[in-house]
């Protein structure tokens, strides 16, 4: 633990700390452009120069390790002069076009020029100009503004694992280029915009949309995949203009996937903003009163055993709880949240949670991926696995289709046979899992939605048990949920009770005319054809698949417009917060079943959000512990390990990363991304 003095104050820091980090620990801010905590040290911008007493030249603090007895000055005249010199050189070729630059107001160069810039330029020569590059539909480039910090290059290389950016040339001729014009082949590419300390890389969909000081900021969580990344929603005039990641070390660190960031333009189109009623084959706009009356009559008339309700992939706990309560009061047994039919153990949380936790990936020392493509299902989790692999080179194996996950993977086969062999202990990878102190078995939600999902669940559990992956201090059996609603629905128990139908059962019953009433709560990821002949109510925010054959459309708020709780794949409840009110007559998800219950005279024990939360807390105390991990769940004997395997290869469950839900399907930006990837 070396001691050093920073501006005369004694500080003791850990071995290997750099001077810049030590200064931060001492509360002294050091300006920087190229340095970033989560990227390798480049040391090329020179903005972080400090003075070390006894050393003739200023030192780059980001790259200088602390040594015992060092005396660092950060506020001396020499330091000020050195930084002013660096700034002057950085600005030599910078266009100073802040008034027309989207980075204006949140630009590191602009901010630091305030402290270290000269009032007037001494540069009389011609500035260089650099041609712009095409980095695809998300990243706009104005390369003349680039100061060559190489953060974007290092991010793509190190974090994203898609080394498609590079520096060409040297000195004054240096330029940042992409390997292929037109597209960056990473689901995390949007993060380079956040990393760029100047206006060289800005958000293309957000170009010239707003100035940062005009926006309201709402801290929320992402619901477009199952990871539950921390986000900030920036809105103005009732419209979400952009989504940025927030730091959450336990989940997304400070990255988010491109869908989570850029699908939000889909929130403004194809919206249901008033109730619709189908009459004589055409939708008519109606009032809430008329719509609720129609739904109430149909629900009243339908026998409970011929009534069913399905909750979709983007719905929060509150909406599901209210609908489930209404259905239970009606005596309806057929309620399900597993749209894709996932074979999770009923009432056995360890069978649907990412038990190892996302931060736990940092401890894993052997990973088995079963029927999952984390790169598409949860890019931030994939980045975490890659980070772990980069740090330690742990063995990673996969059962499922071979795709590039950005780290080397041992392919054990496309179908579940290898899993059976692993469970029997006859597969060589068993040894690697067995030797690991923290073996991690990641099971994809798609693998469990197969017809033999229960068998796969059981076999994967056996593999985990055999590898001693389920101990008090470590539970490596982890299910990767790819949608935000699923874990919450399972925690709440939105599954059929005795004698009820699950989602598959509803589809077959409906196609045989066995259902009279179906309530789709944001349920789109299911083929609606089967429900043609059933009186169907669709509650949701977009006129998407679920609305196709519905008889009544009830407009609901999207995740950026209501307060709602989402349980991520770890089982961690987090709260999404509204950035603005829902459009038109749309209502928060929970209010609609409650209003329906009131109209039908069905007593529900709450009529406010607080009351609903109390009700959820009473039944599931851990769901009220916002942002906290649930208490660890033991590996019970879930699954059907003895059952018959289908043998078919695992399918790619997310064939198109950019379009997986009503919001992203409505997004023009996501469509452009899908096209760019297809064209490249």
């Amino acid at each position, binding site marked *: 633990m070396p001691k050093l003095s920073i501006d005369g104050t004694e500080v003791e820091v850990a071995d290997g700390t750099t001077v810049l980090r030590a200064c931060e620990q001492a509360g002294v801010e050091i300006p920087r452009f190229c340095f970033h905590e989560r990227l390798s040290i480049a040391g090329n911008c020179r903005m972080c120069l400090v003075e070390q007493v006894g050393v003739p030249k200023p030192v780059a603090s980001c790259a200088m390790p602390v040594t015992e007895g060092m005396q660092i000055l950060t506020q001396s005249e020499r330091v000020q002069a050195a930084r002013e010199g660096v700034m002057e050189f950085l600005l030599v070729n910078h266009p100073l076009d802040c008034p027309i630059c989207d980075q204006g107001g949140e630009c590191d160069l602009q901010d630091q020029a305030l402290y270290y810039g000269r009032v007037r330029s001494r540069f009389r020569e011609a500035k260089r100009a650099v041609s712009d590059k095409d980095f695809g539909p998300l990243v706009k480039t104005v390369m003349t503004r680039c100061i060559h910090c190489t953060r974007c290059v290092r991010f793509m*290389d190190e974090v994203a694992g898609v080394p*498609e*950016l*590079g520096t*060409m*040339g*040297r000195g004054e001729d240096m330029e940042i280029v992409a*390997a292929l014009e037109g597209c960056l082949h990473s689901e995390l590419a949007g993060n380079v915009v956040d990393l760029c300390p100047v206006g060289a890389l800005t958000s293309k969909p957000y170009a010239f949309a707003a100035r940062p000081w005009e926006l309201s900021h709402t801290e929320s969580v992402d619901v477009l995949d199952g990871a539950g990344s921390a986000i900030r929603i920036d809105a103005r005039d009732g419209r979400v203009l952009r989504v940025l990641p927030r730091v959450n070390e336990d989940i997304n660190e400070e990255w988010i996937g491109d869908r989570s960031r850029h699908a939000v333009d889909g929130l403004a189109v194809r919206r249901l903003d008033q109730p619709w009623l189908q009459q004589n084959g055409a939708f008519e706009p109606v009032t809430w009163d008329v719509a609720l009356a129609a739904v109430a009559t149909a629900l009243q008339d339908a026998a409970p055993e011929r009534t069913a309700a399905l909750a979709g992939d983007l719905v929060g706990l509150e909406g599901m709880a209210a609908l489930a309560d209404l259905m239970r009061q009606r005596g309806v047994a057929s309620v399900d949240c597993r749209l894709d039919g996932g074979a999770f153990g009923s009432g056995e949380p360890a069978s649907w949670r990412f038990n190892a936790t996302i931060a736990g990936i940092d401890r894993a020392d052997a990973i088995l991926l079963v029927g999952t493509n984390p790169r598409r299902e949860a890019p931030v989790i994939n980045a975490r696995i890659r980070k772990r692999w980069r740090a330690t080179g742990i063995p990673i194996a996969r059962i499922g289709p071979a795709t590039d996950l950005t780290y080397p993977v041992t392919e054990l086969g496309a179908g579940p046979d290898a899993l059976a062999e692993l469970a029997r202990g006859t597969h060589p990878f068993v040894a690697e899992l067995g030797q690991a102190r923290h073996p991690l078995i990641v099971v994809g939600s798609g693998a469990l939605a197969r017809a033999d999902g229960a068998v796969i669940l059981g076999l994967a559990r056996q593999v985990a048990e055999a590898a001693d992956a389920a101990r008090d201090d470590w539970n490596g059996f982890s299910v990767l949920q790819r949608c935000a609603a699923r874990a919450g629905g399972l925690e709440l128990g939105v599954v059929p009770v005795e004698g009820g139908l699950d989602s598959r059962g509803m589809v077959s019953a409906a196609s045989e005319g066995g259902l009279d009433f179906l309530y789709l709560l944001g349920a789109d990821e299911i083929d609606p054809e089967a429900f043609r002949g059933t009186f169907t109510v669709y509650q949701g925010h977009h006129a998407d698949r679920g609305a196709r054959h519905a008889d009544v459309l009830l407009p609901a708020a999207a995740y950026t417009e209501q307060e709602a709780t989402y349980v991520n794949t770890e089982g961690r409840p987090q709260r999404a917060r509204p950035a603005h009110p829902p459009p038109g007559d749309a209502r928060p998800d929970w209010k609609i079943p409650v209003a329906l219950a009131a109209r039908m005279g069905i007593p529900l024990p709450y009529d406010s959000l607080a009351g609903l939360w109390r009700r959820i807390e009473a039944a599931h105390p851990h769901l009220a512990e916002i942002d906290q991990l649930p208490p660890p769940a033991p590996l019970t004997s879930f699954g059907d390990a003895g059952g018959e395997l289908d043998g078919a290869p695992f399918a790619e469950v997310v064939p198109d990363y950019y379009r997986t839900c009503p919001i992203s399907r409505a997004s023009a930006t996501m469509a452009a991304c899908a096209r760019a990837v297809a064209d490249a």
Partner: protein
Amino acid sequence: MTGGADLFPGPDRDEAERILGRYPQEHRQSAVLPLLDLAQRRHGGWLPAALVDAVGDYLGMPSMRVRELVTFYSMFHDRPVGRYLVQVCRTTPCWLRGSDEVLAAARQELGIAPGETTPDGDFTLIEVECLGACADAPVVQINDDFHERLDGGQMRAWIHAHRGPKEG
């Protein structure tokens, strides 16, 4: 990691292996500069993009990282160069000792500007920074050889002597 045989056929294979042998197995990528040099020498003094990528594949390096190197070092050429690559040093010591005159002579004799190649493909003229032979300034490097203490006349004479199809 494939393509070694196509990239470095015949005896070059041994040479490539010998170069690789100088570095630990887990740091194969350290051999990238000498291998690029070998590839460039075997390909008429320049490196087409496909060849750069092949070297990257051979070493298990992303092609972007290799392309960066090729554009960073002035010794690598990503466009065709003439049979004779005439590199005139223009850094201060050479400049003080008359590199302007040497360069002017080369321009005039060859009829091309720096960065260009003669239409017959024999000569490429470029300006370079310090070649590290300041004691004998002005210096011109032609292919692998230094020509030292030159003046305009000697530059002309050398070009004249190497004109035409007679030499390789």
